């Protein structure tokens, strides 16, 4: 199920920006802010990594939007084909924005502590996967500075190996170290207990409920709420939008207004 209707995509993109703005800074929480007061370079870069990852995802989204639109000029160009390509680009951009927002706002490791026990393994894998983007951005910043201080200028394509190789190679080595560490510490022995799982508070339930409701609204859109998920570009007509679905998209901004979740049990 996907949509190319700009009346749904644009509100979603706006919601992403709103939630990021409302929560991007707050999600660090008081603990991390206190941390920021004593760690120095590391913390500075850690915070930059998370904020930076949102920017990178949005940037990739815009690149996708433009690239997808430009690609159409390599084929037959009609008003309909240009609009269709632009809308597909918009869909891709919105997806990347959603992903970037999740990355910058949600702490995947806290979600891990909220996840039911049977979902622990996939949740841990997801949390580790989500932490790759911000860590890579931090690593890239560190490598760029290190190479500059050795006299190698990291700008332009010719200098790309000096930036990319240390980032990727160190990333691979760290992945191996992590796998070794997990195995050395008994990961996958089958028996597992849980240390201080987080309780599902009102905000967590409300967020989950809103997400499920919005998903159901879009799934059911083809039937009850009137269509319009796919926009007709041949013939090119002004798309119709269901106010219910626009509302469903906008409702996803509500979690951005909720108070931060409770701490440990």
């Amino acid at each position, binding site marked *: 199920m996907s949509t190319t209707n700009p009346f749904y995509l644009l509100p979603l993109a706006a919601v992403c920006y709103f939630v990021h703005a409302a929560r991007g800074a707050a999600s660090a929480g008081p*603990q*991390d802010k*206190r*941390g*920021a*007061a*004593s*760690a*120095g370079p*590391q*913390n*500075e870069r*850690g*915070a930059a990594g998370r904020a930076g990852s949102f920017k990178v995802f949005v940037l990739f989204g815009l690149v996708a939007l433009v690239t997808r639109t430009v690609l159409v000029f390599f084929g037959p160009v009609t008003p309909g084909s240009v609009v269709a390509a632009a809308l597909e680009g918009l869909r891709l951009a919105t997806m990347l924005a959603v992903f970037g927002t999740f990355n910058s706002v949600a*702490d995947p*490791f806290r979600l891990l*502590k909220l996840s039911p026990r049977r979902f622990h393994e996939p949740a*841990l894998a997801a*949390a*580790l996967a989500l*932490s790759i983007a911000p*860590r890579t951005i*931090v*690593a890239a910043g*560190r*490598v760029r*500075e*290190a190479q*500059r*201080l*050795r*006299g*190698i*200028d990291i700008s332009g394509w010719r200098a790309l*190996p*000096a930036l990319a*190789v*240390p980032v990727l*190679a160190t990333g691979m*080595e*760290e992945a191996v*170290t*992590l*796998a*070794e*560490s*997990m*195995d*050395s*510490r*008994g*990961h*996958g*022995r089958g*028996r*597992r*207990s*849980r*240390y*201080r799982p987080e309780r599902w508070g009102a905000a967590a339930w409300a967020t989950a409920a809103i997400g499920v409701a919005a998903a159901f609204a879009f799934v059911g859109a083809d039937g009850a709420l009137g269509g319009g998920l796919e926009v007709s570009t041949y013939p090119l007509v002004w798309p119709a939008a269901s106010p219910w679905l626009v509302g469903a998209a906008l409702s996803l901004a509500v979690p951005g207004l909720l108070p931060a979740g409770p701490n440990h049990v």
Partner: protein
Amino acid sequence: MSEAVVFENVTFTYPGAPSPALERVNLRIEEGSFVLVTGPTGSGKSTFLRAINGLVPHFSGGTLSGSVTVEGRSTVSNAPRALADVVAFVPQDPGAAFVVDRVEDELAYGMENLGVPPSVMRRRVEETLDLLDIEPLRGRSVRSISGGERQRVAIAAALTVAPRVLVLDEPTSQLDPQGAEDVLAALQRLVHDLGLTVMMAEHRLERVAGFVDFAVGCRGGRGVAGSTAGRASVVSGPPSEVLEAVGTGPPVARLGRLVGWRPLPLTVREARRAAASAGAQSKVGAASAGAQSKVGAASAGAQSKVGAASAGAQSKVGAASAGAQLIHAHLSAAYGDRTVLERVALVVRPGEIVGVVGRNGAGKTTLLRSLAGVHPASAGSVAVQGGRAPRPGSDVALCPQDPDSLLFKETVQQEVEATLRARGKAGPSTSPASGAETLLEELGLADLADRHPRDLSAGQRLLVAVAATVAAGAPLLLLDEPTRGLDVESKARLAGLLRGFARAGRAVIFATHDVELVAEVATRVVMLASGEVVADGVPGEVIGDSPVFSPQIARAFGPRWLTPEAAATGILQSGSTPASVR
């Protein structure tokens, strides 16, 4: 008492390697031992440690013959995860080994995997937070804490599962001297009280010599010239014998070699006793006659080897002080709204080698980054010759704490040439190849020139990064913690390189927790505390009688001597017992 770790005729070869990394290793470690694993950079210490919990061969691949048993379980038939309840492993780079995000959850992770009941987990987490003095960090993200804090957290996370054997790869490399002492004392308590067995690789022998009661010496392996073919690659026994066998030791042991004390002293106390008994037996005269020539020989070859030649260095400073200023800084610096450096004033002239010391978080790294022009001053300024701001990479070069950020070429040689080429040092008269060769020769890396940098040990990688940074040819060289993973000999080579660099009219500023390097090579010491300069002067004055930062020789014999060579010369010339002044 039963045996915690047993190696029986173990030979291990990495996949595709021409010669074994471990060869015919036989040893038995009693339960409740505190074991030092020592040996030159790249001699197979990490391989040996990783064989204890089965990472070698389960993760490394390669072929292992013979048997390794830990608490009676074979590491061949048991994967590391199946040994997780008896042996815990803390790797060299703990930052990459953290699995979850918050410090407190990281401490619980291993216990969760073992199914430890929640009430027990809760109690052990609290106890361990206190044991390693990291309670204030409990809610922090492991990615936001400093290197020294990471090492404490990684050790804590290994201890919560209540292992019988704890394996540590350079656990104090990022800790300040006091922090290292606290962590080692905490481990020693567990060894004494609970019978824990600790197996620890560490190059800063002066830190650990007083704690360990057994030693394992690695003396060669993969890629080391004159490899070990035909003999066991590992020796074990009492620490003094093993250090003798692998030809290394803390500063007092090097002093002992120079003046002929047997058995070799390893700790400050043993050194004082050795000195006192040498005096009491009136053998000093005889000893000095025999040993004088040794010292002479040692200091003659000292420029490339150990020997400080501090008199020479001193006069250089005097001559240079009239000269130009390489850098002139008067600055404050901050991260966000937190002040990290508070009105730090520093002027460095050609020929100076400045050591910056201070506890974890004192602002050393920020100072270096500010001097290099990559961290903006919140007040004041940094200026190089000509009064302008430093240009990173040309006026000032900096070798970072983490050498892996630099390495991107296929061979060690190319890595150094890449810098020379980028800096336009590849003129027709001096090809980058010859420039690189000279540098690698000086750092003892010539044998490794064709190796892939990422196949090398941590210490060797660091030296390659140093070479790649020095190659930038900047008149001011900054080094952030340049001795992690370096053995005594590599450290002496590094010291020689820095001296040569300073002699050529340039200057070095290095930040370190390694006070022995400061004693050996620095012409001046700056001590930072909470972002302020609290002392700035010659090493003898600043660290000679510091309870925390003084080098081992000064601890034993007072602030007049800082290095083994100076002490040996002093002892032999005066012909008297160096009675402790304290």
